[in-house]
Structure formats: C-alpha cells, structure tokens
C-alpha cells in the first residue's frame, strides 16, 4: 500500500498525472473488447452462422430430392437458389437479434451497466458504440454465412430449375440485402435491450415484431392489410433480400429505407430512456 500511482515520477511535489480522456473511439474500443470477452458472444454468433449455412443446405437438398422423386411440394414451385439458401435467415435473425438484446439488456441484469456508465457518464456514446460494434459484427457474420450458404446451396441445385449463379441478375444484391437485414436486426436487438432493460422483455418484443405481428395482421380487413403489411419490419426486411417483387411488396431500396426507419425508431427510444432514466 506504499503508493497507488505508477512508479513515482521525478518530482514528488507535483506528480505528473497522465492525461486520460474519454473519446468516441475509445468507447468503441471498449465495447469491442466487452463483446469478445464473453463466451455467449462466440456461442451465439456460431449458432447464427450455423443456422444460416445448415438450413440453407438442408433446404437445397430437400428441393433437389423433391425434383428427383418427381413430387415437388407447392412451396418449392417458385424456389430459386437464392430463396433456398436464404431459408436459414429466419432462424439466424433470432440468434443475432437475441445476442443484440444481450449486449445491452445483459448489462442491466448483471449490474455491469453501473460500471459502464460511471466510466462514460455522458451515456449516449455507449449506446452508439454498442449498436455500431454489434451491428457491424452481425453484418459481417451474416454476409459471410449467406454467401457460404448460397455458394454451396447453388452447387447442390445446379441442373434443376432453381439453379442460379452469382452472375445472375439480382443475386448479389439479394445476398448483400440479407446480410444487411440481419445486421440491422442485430442493431434493433441492442436498441430493444437498452429500451426495455430486460433480457426477457427485449427478446419478447423482438420475436413479436419480427415473427408474430405479421400473423396478427391477417386478422385485419384485407384492404388494411394491403396498406400496412408491406411496411411491417419483417416484410420490409424481406423486400431487402427477396429476388422478385410484386405489387404487394416494397422494392428493395424502399424496403431498406422502411427497415432503417424501424431501426432508427428503436434506437431513438433507447437513447431517450438511457438519457432520461436513472440506472
């Protein structure tokens, strides 16, 4: 307990104090380190990647064997190599979205948030950094998974009506769109976690928004359905990576804009709560 400072500098009268400072880049670096120092990150990202690739391959294989036996299921009538290899998106979005929720809400459930916000009492840089770091990681993992799923899936279905290559019109756009969609789902997860400050609450709202609401909409009168349905997060997101579009869906660019709108909305809610409420 002799001294608490680093090896004491030359003049003991005025010990030189290092000039520390909180900057945006440093908060980013801290959030990056936090993300990778938890085992759950590796496991969940691995699961997301596995879902993308494995389900894509299973779908492609299922299609191929259906062709072979001559009894094609109706669902597969319009299948393409893209739609088959993106089959795992639905499951991967759960893994990535849940991990996004854990990144923020996990800090509240463990109490870590008190350490975090004591170090960065301005608070908002923490939210932006978490969203940026995890969004980027989810984007990279998802894009990687989608391309691997497509390249191996298209190999399986080559020689069938669904066959497609990367050079086919719209394929690369679809695959990049799927990666971007999953990256943004990750961001929405972090925003919901920060907004609700509860892992269970964040996951529930995420699942409801992406998977349950589209089903509930079908209870509405059909004229309403047509007006509302394309703008729902899940449907707008699907437009981002669907290969073909019709009058009931948004164009890829419009889908991206609408889904970005939902993301911004969730982030704005999270920012408001973070700044306004006690921890």
């Amino acid at each position, binding site marked *: 307990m002799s001294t608490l400072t680093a090896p004491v500098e030359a003049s003991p009268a005025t010990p030189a104090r290092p000039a520390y400072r*909180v900057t945006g880049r440093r908060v980013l670096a801290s959030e990056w380190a936090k993300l990778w120092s938890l085992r759950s990150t590796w496991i969940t990202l691995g699961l997301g990647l596995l879902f993308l690739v494995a389900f894509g391959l299973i779908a492609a294989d299922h299609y191929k064997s259906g062709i072979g036996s001559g009894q094609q299921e109706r669902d597969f009538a319009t299948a393409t190599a893209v739609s088959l290899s993106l089959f795992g998106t639905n499951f991967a979005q759960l893994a990535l979205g849940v991990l996004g929720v854990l990144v923020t809400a996990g800090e509240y459930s463990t109490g870590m948030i008190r*350490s975090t916000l004591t170090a960065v009492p301005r608070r908002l840089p923490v939210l932006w950094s978490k969203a940026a770091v995890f969004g980027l990681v989810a984007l990279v993992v998802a894009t990687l998974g989608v391309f691997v799923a497509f390249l191996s899936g298209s190999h399986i279905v080559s020689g069938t009506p669904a066959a497609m290559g990367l050079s086919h019109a719209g394929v690369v756009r679809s695959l990049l769109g799927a990666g971007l969609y999953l990256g943004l789902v990750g961001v929405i997860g972090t925003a919901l976690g920060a907004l609700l400050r509860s892992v269970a609450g964040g996951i529930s709202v995420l699942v409801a928004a992406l998977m349950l609401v589209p089903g509930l909409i079908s209870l509405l009168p059909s004229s309403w359905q047509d007006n509302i349905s394309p703008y729902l997060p899940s449907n707008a997101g699907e437009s981002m990576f669907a290969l073909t579009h019709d009058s009931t869906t948004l164009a890829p660019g419009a889908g991206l804009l609408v889904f970005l709108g939902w993301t911004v909305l969730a982030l704005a809610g999270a920012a408001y709560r973070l700044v306004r409420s006690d921890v």
Partner: protein
Amino acid sequence: MIDAQQLTKRYGEKTAVDGLDFAVRPGTVTGFLGPNGAGKSTTMRMIVGLDAPTSGSVTVNGRTYARHQAPLQEVGALLEAKSVHPGRSAYNHLLALALTHGIPRRRVDEVIELAGLGSVARKRAGAFSLGMGQRLGIAAALLGDPQTVMLDEPVNGLDPEGVLWIRNLLTALADEGRTVFVSSHLMSEMALVADHLIIVGRGRLLADTTVTDLVREAGGDTVRVATQEPARLREALAGPGVGITGRAGSEELQVTGLSAREIGLKAAEHGIALFELTARTVSLEEAFMNLTRDAVEYHGSTTGIETRVAEGSAA
C-alpha cells in the same frame, strides 16, 4: 472535493435524500454514516451521475461528474450493488473500463496486484467470493488513479484481513492528499478510519462533525461519583469548566470536565470518603444511536438496541 447543495432525490412519494448540504474535503477520510435506508447509497449514486437529483446539485472538483473529460480520473467509486458482468474475467472487466479512458494495460495490471487479485485475474468474476468481488470493485475504483475515492460499505463481506486492508488503504489514500469518502452503517468501523463524519438519517443531514466533537457533544466524558457527603464534594470540585449534576437526596453525582483521577485527589484533600468513582465514556456507538434514534427506519421490537437506549436515558 465533493460539494452537495440542497441535494434532493424523491422516488414518487418517498423522499430518499432530503436537502443535503455537505462538503467532503481532500486529505482526510470522511465517513458517511447513517442507518440502513438513510439515503447514503442514493447520494453516492447521484455523485457519479447514475441517479439524477430531483433538485439541488452535487459537484466533484467543481463540476458535475458527467462534465469531466476523464471521469474515472476524478472519482473512483465502489457502489454497493454488484457492477460486474459475471461472465467476464476480472482482467477483461478492468480492461474494458480502462479502454474508455485510454488508461494503459500496465495500470490494469497494477490495480490487479494492488487489490491482491493476481491469482484470479483470469477467472470469471461470477465465480468470485463476496470478498474477491469487493476487491475487484476497489481495483476498478482505483483504475483511473482518481483524486477522489468513494466507497459504499467497502467492508461488507470482507474477512478480518480484508477489513484491515481496506482501513490501511483508506488511510494511505488520504495521506496522499486524496479525497476519501466512505459510507457505513457501523460507527465502530468508521471511528477507526474516519476523521470527519457526515451523519444522515431518513435522507436528512443529522451532523457534519469530527469524531472528537461528536463524542463531546453527545455527553462527553462523564465521571460518576458516589459519596456520603455530596454537598461537600460539590463545593470541593466546583470550578470553571466543571459541570456537576445529581438528584437531590441521592449520593450520586455526575461530573464533567474533571478526570476520575482529579476527583479522587480532590476528595482525599478534603477528607471526603468516596464509594464509587467511575469514568463513563460515551461510546461513539451510543452517540451515533442517540443521534439517529428517531431516524432509524426499521426498529426491531425487542432488540438489545432498545434496551440499551432505555438504560442510557435512565442513567
């Protein structure tokens, strides 16, 4: 230097902190005392900006905590509740905090050594014992080499060795000229380390004083003396600065301002026989309890505390 002005925090109907005014100065250990639920933790949370005051303000070195460029360098805080992700190792926890400020890894290693966590630094913090968790919290508090160190109930859950370690640490920090602000609900613990005391009850300031002043104001050092000739003894002892009380017809007197030794010598000088001569120091614990008696939130109905207080007022 911590400066609170009319600091107030209300949660709906309940007022947790009620118009607190106090200053914590560098170079000494300031104890922050009060019964459970007195608002100590809430006050500390407001100091580091985790809770926003309902009204009033609190500044650290002249500014609100959040306005500092390097907050961890201004205040190092150990809060009562756990503030660590159990899945992260102690080293990675400290590193994540250090990265926000550009604090070098060398300093992370230093505080790990300082807190005696060297052998468990790579283990998950969730597997730590209460004492180890407390040491990790203190390592985090010292990470930024802060001017002000603020610890909420630091000895909770520590073994005797840990308690001693904290005591020495607090004194060393104050000797280095830092502001040290430590909360506790145990007067006896505070008496060993603190010079200055800020005592609160039900969110209100009860006393802003020093340990010696607190004892003096609470009745100081009284000597109980019994004799057959109380009237003669009164005369013999009377003098400036001496207070003598006693019930009429009783052989017993309470004397303040003279030591038992002085009283005995004077009595012998005057040939007065004494039956009893007892120095009765008001303990800090008693002084503290007298002060906070009305402010205690949860009274046990038949505890020793009540009995002792009753005895104290009868004596």
